[in-house]
Structure formats: C-alpha cells, structure tokens
C-alpha cells in the first residue's frame, strides 16, 4: 500500500468516526426527571443519587434517585401503585401517585418513538 492510499484510508476512517459520533450524540438520553406536585414543577438530575421529599395533597411522598433511575419509595396513598411501578430511567417513562397529586416523568422523547403507551 502506498503512502497516499494509507492517507486516504485514514481520512475515510476519521470521517466515519466523526459521523458516528455525531449520530450518537444526537440520541435522546433520560438524564432529567420532571416532578409535578401541587406546589408546581421541579427538574431533578438523574446522575446524582439523592432522596427527595415532595409535598402532595395527602402529605409527603418520598422519591429516590438511584443509579440513574427515579422512583417513589414512600407515599401516603393506600394502594401504593406508584411504589409498585418501580424505578424509571428511560426517556418518556411516567408514573404518578394519583391520590397525592404527584407525577414524575423522565424528560426527553421516548427511545421507542411512541407518543404514548396504551394500557
């Protein structure tokens, strides 16, 4: 292989790496969650483990951020559906403690391209 050929191949490789980087940099990641409560909305970063107490219509709900995911761990509602729904990390994921009027959703467009999930 001549020097010129090598340079051309190196250029091709660099170009491809650039395009691949640009492609992945545009992908949506779920790194922020939005919590809505009677007091309003707040954004929470998911890259830092933390415990949050959010006041709802019935009392305080406790949410945890753990390993890049967020979920309810305590809530004053009777059925605990919000806690049973577990932790969420994917963009577009949503859960709520309806009786306590607190919802959380991971920001960003869903990775699966759906506008909504029917259930």
């Amino acid at each position: 292989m001549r020097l010129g050929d090598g340079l051309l191949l190196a250029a091709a490789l660099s170009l491809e790496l650039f395009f691949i980087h640009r492609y992945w940099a545009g992908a949506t990641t779920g790194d922020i969650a939005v919590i809505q409560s009677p007091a309003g909305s707040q954004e929470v970063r998911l890259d830092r483990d933390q415990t949050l107490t959010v006041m709802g219509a019935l009392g305080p709900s406790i949410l945890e951020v753990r390993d890049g995911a967020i979920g309810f761990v305590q809530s004053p509602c009777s059925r605990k559906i919000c806690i049973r729904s577990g932790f969420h990390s994917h963009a577009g994921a949503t859960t709520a403690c309806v009786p306590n009027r607190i919802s959380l959703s991971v920001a960003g467009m869903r990775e699966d391209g759906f506008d909504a999930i029917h259930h």
Partner: protein
Amino acid sequence: MKKSLPIVVLFAALAAGLWLNRETPTPAPLHSYRLFALGTLIDIQIAGPMSDTRYSALEGELIPLLNAFETRWSVLRDGALAQLNRQLETAASATFADGLYTDLRLAQQICRNSGGRYDPAIGRWIALWGFEDEEKPREQPPTETEIVAARAPSWCEAELSDQIVTLGTVGVRLNFGGMAKGRAVDLLLTHIRNAGFPDALVNAGGDLQVSGQRGERAWRIGIRDPRAPGEQKAIAAISLHDGEALFSSGDYERFFTYDGQRYHHLIDPHTGQPARRAISATVLHTDAALADAAATALFVAGPEDAPRVAADLGIEMWMVIAPDGTPTTSPALEQRLEWLDTDAAG
C-alpha cells in the same frame, strides 16, 4: 482496481456517514399538560405552534371543564349523579339533571347490546368490593351473603324518560366509571380542537384518543403488556388516525390480593364477582365513551363470547387477552397492529 480501492472506501464512508446523519422530518412542537382527575393522571399533548399566553389560557379552560365533568359524574362529590343516587336510595323512581340524559341512554344501549355485561347499576357491588373510593380499599372479598344482598335490577331494564328514571326497586346505586373516562377524554379533545388546535392526544391513565396527527405522521401508540404493568415495554404498536380512541379494561388496574387470589375492579354484572374470563380487553373506535364501556363488556365476555358481543355493540376493532396470555384479535384490528413481541402474537 487495487489503486481505486481507497477511493471507493472513502466514498463509501462518506455515503454511510451522510445517511446516518440524514435530515429527518422535524417533529412538530409539542405542548403538554398534566392534570389529575377521574382518579387518574390525564396527559394532554398538543402538536403545533402555540404562544405562552395561549398555553396558559387553554390550561385555564381545561381544568374547570374537567372539574365540572368530574363533579357531575362522581359518586363521591355532590354533583348530578350523586344527587340521583341519593334519591334512588329511598325511591325506585327519581328525577335527574339536564345534561345526563344522552349518556344515561347511551349506557342503556350498551347495556342491552352487550347482554348486560356493561351495567352501570352495579354501583352497590363496586362499593361493596371497595372499588368506589380509592382511599377505602378492601383487604378481603365480601361474603356471598353480602353480594346477594347488594344485587340490583339491571340498567338494561330501567325506564328512562327525559328527566325521570324508574328502576324495579329502591336502593340502586349507579356508577358510570366504566364509561365516564371515555366521555371526559372526548370532551377535552373536542374543546382543544374547537380552541384551534386540531392535532392533539389526550391520554387518561393509558386510555386515549387523538385528533389530527403528530406533525407529518400519525400518532404512534405502544400497547403495554398487561402482565408487566411496572414496565413501559410495549407488545404491539399502532398508528391512530383522526378521532380514534383506544380504550382497555384490565384486571391489573385496580385490585387487591387475598389468599393468593387477585380480586379486581371489573365486576361481572351477572354474578357480582370479578370477571375471570380475561385479563385485558381493548377496543378501538371513534366514540371514546362507547370504546370505554365496550372494553368493559368484552372483558366480562372473555375471548369466546367477544366476537358476538363486539358485533352486537357495533365494534369492529377489538382484542381480548385470555388469562393464559393468549390474545384473540378481531381481523380489522389485527390488520392495524404491529406485534413487537412474537410470543404474544396469536
């Protein structure tokens, strides 16, 4: 040939890179509202441009609209339905407020066409099983004696005039929870459309209706596995067109577990017990209230009777999932569904 290889590789890399980074249609701007009502979270998405002022003004219109609707149809608030129920506690005949008649009549048609599988006159059973008030759940099932004592005449047999309803006995408690969510979704979507926003999606706890489309494409919906409620994983996908509503009834929505058995909120109007022939029923129709009630009726019917009941209700697109997880899907809906999990496809 050997000499041109690097140039070919270079051009291939360039072409692949350009394809990866090709321009995709920019999604229309999306504005969303999140409201709590009817015991669920209502998520509204509106596609298209909207000023901040208009966004706030529309929210100010939707909240009272929803509140008034909920008060009218709630069995717990002091609205039109609660007032009707209070009269029916001590009388077999009662007057009802303006604005109820159309839906009372629709509920009766659905009751009759479904062979009584959807019946809003089972309010006493719903209360007895602890599903009337979210904050007062039961921990164990009622006794057979209690169930028999709470039996009421069917709504199918009620005599209904413009302002008076007559039932066979006193003590009937009406509960339109199986249809009200559909009507509320329709009400919100109609208001949004009339306010000048033709492209919207209203999602009430997973039951939804759309108008228009999302930018250049149809609204795209994932259908969740009824046995994986905590996950956001979809087993099927569907594109919904203008006016279409997708409603499901499932045993995973509200339930309690006693002695290893799941007791859910979808009570069979014929037995007073939670219906056991299905774990989920789904209906696609342009009338959201009908879709809502029909999903309940098909859940009670189960996969074996679903084709006949759906035909009687005028529902072409439906799916019922049996307790073993096997889906039975009408041919019209099967054509629209894209199965994502081949294990679930029947």
